[in-house]
């Protein structure tokens, strides 16, 4: 009985979020259709425009002290100031907030209380040997 076609190299490799597929195995790279080439050309045009803007600022006779990168400013803004306005309490976020924000506080409150009560009981019963420490 003849075996089926061998598994594709990409499947054999198995990329995930920790490692990506090498470009040589990526089937996306095998296709050079006109749509893909047009898309690549548009991306290249955007990249070239940005490069031109940057080079104009960099090589101008009176360059600014700091060439601000709008992508960097947007990234910083998104991670710091845009989180609270776009946050929305859903089931998932409420659960995570309760688990990771309120949970540890309650847990440590309970842990310390139980530990202190246990030690208090031992001391009252006279079973606890006080450790001697200079500090």
């Amino acid at each position, binding site marked *: 009985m003849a075996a089926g076609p061998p598994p594709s190299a990409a499947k054999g490799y198995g990329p995930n979020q920790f490692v990506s597929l090498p470009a040589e195995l990526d089937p996306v790279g095998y296709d050079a259709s006109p749509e893909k080439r047009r898309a690549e050309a548009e991306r290249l045009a955007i990249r070239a425009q940005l490069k031109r803007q*940057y080079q104009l600022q960099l090589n101008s006779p009176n360059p600014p002290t700091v060439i601000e990168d709008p*992508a960097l400013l947007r990234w910083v803004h998104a991670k710091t100031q845009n989180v609270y306005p776009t946050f929305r309490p859903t089931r998932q976020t409420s659960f995570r907030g309760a688990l990771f924000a309120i949970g540890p506080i309650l847990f440590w409150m309970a842990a310390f209380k139980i530990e202190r009560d246990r030690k208090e009981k031992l001391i009252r019963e006279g079973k606890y040997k006080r450790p001697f420490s200079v500090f």
Partner: protein
Amino acid sequence: MAAAGLGGVLWQRAAARLRALRVAAPLGARAASGLSSEMLPGPYPRTPEERAAAAKKYNMRVEDYQPYPDDGLGYGDYPMLPKRSAHERDPWYQWDQPDMRHNWGEPMHWDFDMYIRNRFDTSPTQIPWHTMRKHFLVFLSTMLIMFGIGQFYPSYRPVGPKQYPFNDLYLERGGDPNKEAPVVTHYEI
């Protein structure tokens, strides 16, 4: 001159001028710095026009622009870029920022600071990830199982208590030399 101080005429005039300027500025205006609010990230785009505007804002094609799903986690309209680290970017291309391998104005990944070259590396490995994981888990589990078995069923050569000469070191342990030492034998015939 000293009596003028803060209540003096010049101060009052300057304060009045500042107040006039503040009133004259339109409502909602502030000192301009950095990017305007249209250029900054905003809420999740709902209509196609908002998507197109967001793609243009982030210097991406409309087809390439894909925001994070609207789960209320705080991403807003920030684009979801592929999870590739800086190690995978071409080392020979003339980047505007060669150490970050990043060009001016190019949209940065949300976890950009994790994907720099000092940190997480997603470049393809010589051996597939699942093979490496399997080998590692097999080795780790074998070692742990063997250590566990050895902990519960220890196996070593038989030992007995240590035997000391000279009647169990009678004189060395402070026994009276005038008295007769108690005879200690460690064998049976």
